[in-house]
């Protein structure tokens, strides 16, 4: 069967036309995103100027004019010339001090062991697909603090005692912030529940406690812990400075944590509570099994934000003479052997980078967990 085709109908497909030049490719992207209007073009050039103005000096300081090696063992001398950038050999040489503080170098394996155990326990807690989450949680929150304490402080199994004044560096920053968060979460939950309570005295006490701590700056709390705390203790007892600082931080953070948890509690519809009591659950069980798990899931980002703030705030203990990371960096910079024009800035850049890595990592992790945990609450 052959069709007689009209001669004006094509027998072959026409060659496809190229796409319009201004909708694809780099040029089109730039036109849409960078030069879409006169104002935008000006902004783009301003942005480029800003990048040139910041990135080139930063590159010169961090890499171009930086000192990376010290083959002759000159120490501070190697960085003592005009126009020197960052002095990375300083960081290299004092790296152990920044991480471990004044901890005796023969005993550093104890800190490393503590870190390794901590990381092994944290992996099942943080990575969703790894099994043994429950076991790891019990070990991490119930057993690990004691193991870590005895590893750090010693005094058992023939380990030498290392007094807390020798603790320092990043280790101490991590210790303070971990104790702070682990201890302030349960306290915060109790305070938040107390604030929701119908009993006027309990509610009043919790509100007063929370608002008082939230109103004052952390630095005054630390001053108070260092100056006033000994006055209020029985005569003769003189608690460790670090312990006093940690108590101050825990009380301070628990007030913030209470507000975060309260936000979560208020987000739970009252129907949940009613349904639980219709099932015959007691008040305690309703709170522990129905309300709290949902509330805490809601506020994971808030808890992580509090933790990030706490992690940054640990730097304030340097003001009462504790050698956490920032103070260790400052102390190393005032060492005579390491005096050079950029000693302070090199140290600050290093410390800033370490803090940034931790905080940025945590905030990204929290976003990831939020996405994973949201079970249809968000559209």
């Amino acid at each position, binding site marked *: 069967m052959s069709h007689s085709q009209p001669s004006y109908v094509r027998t072959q497909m026409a060659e496809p036309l190229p796409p319009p030049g201004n909708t694809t490719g780099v040029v089109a992207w730039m036109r849409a995103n*960078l030069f879409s209007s006169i104002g935008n073009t000006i902004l783009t050039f301003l942005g480029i100027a*800003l990048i040139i103005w910041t990135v080139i000096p930063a590159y010169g300081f961090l890499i171009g004019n930086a000192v990376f090696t010290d083959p002759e063992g000159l120490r501070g001398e190697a960085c003592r010339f005009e126009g020197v950038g960052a002095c990375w050999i300083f960081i290299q040489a004092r790296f152990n001090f920044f991480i471990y503080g004044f901890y005796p170098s023969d005993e550093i394996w104890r800190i490393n062991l503590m870190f390794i155990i901590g990381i092994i326990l944290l992996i099942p807690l943080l990575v969703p697909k790894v099994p043994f989450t429950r076991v790891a949680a019990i070990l991490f929150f119930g057993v690990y603090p004691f193991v870590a304490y005895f590893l750090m402080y010693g005094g058992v199994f023939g380990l030498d005692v290392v007094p807390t004044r020798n603790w320092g560096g990043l280790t101490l920053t991590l210790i303070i912030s971990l104790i702070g968060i682990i201890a302030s979460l349960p306290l915060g939950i109790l305070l938040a529940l107390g604030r929701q309570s119908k009993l006027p005295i309990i509610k009043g006490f919790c509100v007063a406690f929370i608002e008082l701590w*939230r*109103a004052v700056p952390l*630095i005054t709390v630390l001053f108070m812990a260092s100056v006033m705390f*000994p*006055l209020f203790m029985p005569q003769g007892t003189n608690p460790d400075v670090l312990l006093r600082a940690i108590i101050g931080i825990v009380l301070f953070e628990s007030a913030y944590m209470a507000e975060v948890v309260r936000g979560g509690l208020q987000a739970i519809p009252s129907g949940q509570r009613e349904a639980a009591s219709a099932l015959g659950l007691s008040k305690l069980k309703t709170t522990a099994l129905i309300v709290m798990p949902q509330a805490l899931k809601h506020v994971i980002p808030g808890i992580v934000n509090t933790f990030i703030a706490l992690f940054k705030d640990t730097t304030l203990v340097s003001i009462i003479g504790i050698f956490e990371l920032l103070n260790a960096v*400052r102390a190393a910079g005032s060492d005579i052997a390491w005096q050079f024009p950029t000693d302070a800035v090199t140290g600050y850049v290093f410390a*800033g980078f370490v803090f940034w890595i931790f905080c940025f990592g945590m905030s990204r992790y929290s976003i990831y967990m939020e996405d994973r945990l949201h079970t249809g609450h968000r559209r």
Partner: protein
Amino acid sequence: MTDVTDKRSGKPARSGIDASLFYNPTARGIVYQGALLIGVVMLIWWLQSNAATNLAALGRSTGFNFLNQTAGFNIGFSLLPFDRTSTYLDVYLVGILNTLLVAVIGIILATMLGFVIGIARLSPNFLIRKLAAAYVEIMRNMPLLLQLFFWYFLALNALPGVRQSYELPLGAVLNQRGLYLPLLQSDDRFLILLGVFVVAVIGAILWRRRQIRKMEEKGERRPVLLPMLGIILIPTIIVYFIAQVPVAFSVPELTGFNYTGGFVVPPELTALVVGLVVYTAAFIAEIVRAGIQAVNYGQVEAASALGLKDSDRLRLVVIPQALRIIIPPLTSQYLNLTKNSSLGAAIAFPELVNVFMGTAINQSGRAVEIVGLTMAVYLTFSLITSLFMNWYNSRVALVER
């Protein structure tokens, strides 16, 4: 008969016999609260008795009478006249004023920078958007104290010496010793000018209200901005020329080895303000971005369907709704900034914590009283902020069906 009515009223037949006191919520509540109250009272009593013994052993007296004693030390930067003969009360006031000064300057600058960066994060321009995001992520994730140390180091070391000072516009000068600003100098007649100006501003605001009411009544546009400027400027300028108010600026000038004249901002204050502004602006930017993004896009579309032009759409529809979301967290950032100004103690700026909780405690030994007074100041700031927030929240609360 009475028995029957009781049963009819449907009250549960609870008496001491068939319901255990243990399961009675009221009784439980009383027990819990009593336990807490006794615990707190005992704790306070224990702490107080310890403190009394310790203070007695140290031979220190207590009370607030030390506030009238001579402090005997000097303060580097003070808005009030202050010298070695001033009292502890003066120290307290100077500290509060310096804290407030940092807070006010910091809040104004951080708001401006924060709004610019927050809006830049929503810019259609790829480069600007990414730069703003980078700024926020870098600044938010580094401790404020570290940033303050950094800025203070720069203010002391990276700025030029006196002879190579940066000459800024309007005669201001920046060098290692501080920022020298021109200072307004005039006499009492300047107060008259200021009074006229304030009255004119109030008048302009009232006029604007009236104008807007009329616009709403008649549904036609009326000029607002230019007449307002006229109402403010014309009387001020007339008074300025009639009263011949002498207005002059004391400009910092290089004499010998240092600049004299003008208002000297010490490097500590500059570093503290820059650090606080740069840090807080990152948080404010996030608040602004979240607030603007939270306004449903349908609102913009509805506004354009009503025929509002671009600027009105933003001014009358988007911004009022965004502000409702932005203002509460913004006030808490302001409070944070005020509290963070206490970190000035670490870079030797004489704000409240530094001069009062630091130096004054060391000099007078009255730790308990001084800590109490200091905390009272911050508590007051916090209460004022939360009062404002409650007032604002009730004012802008959505009226729902």
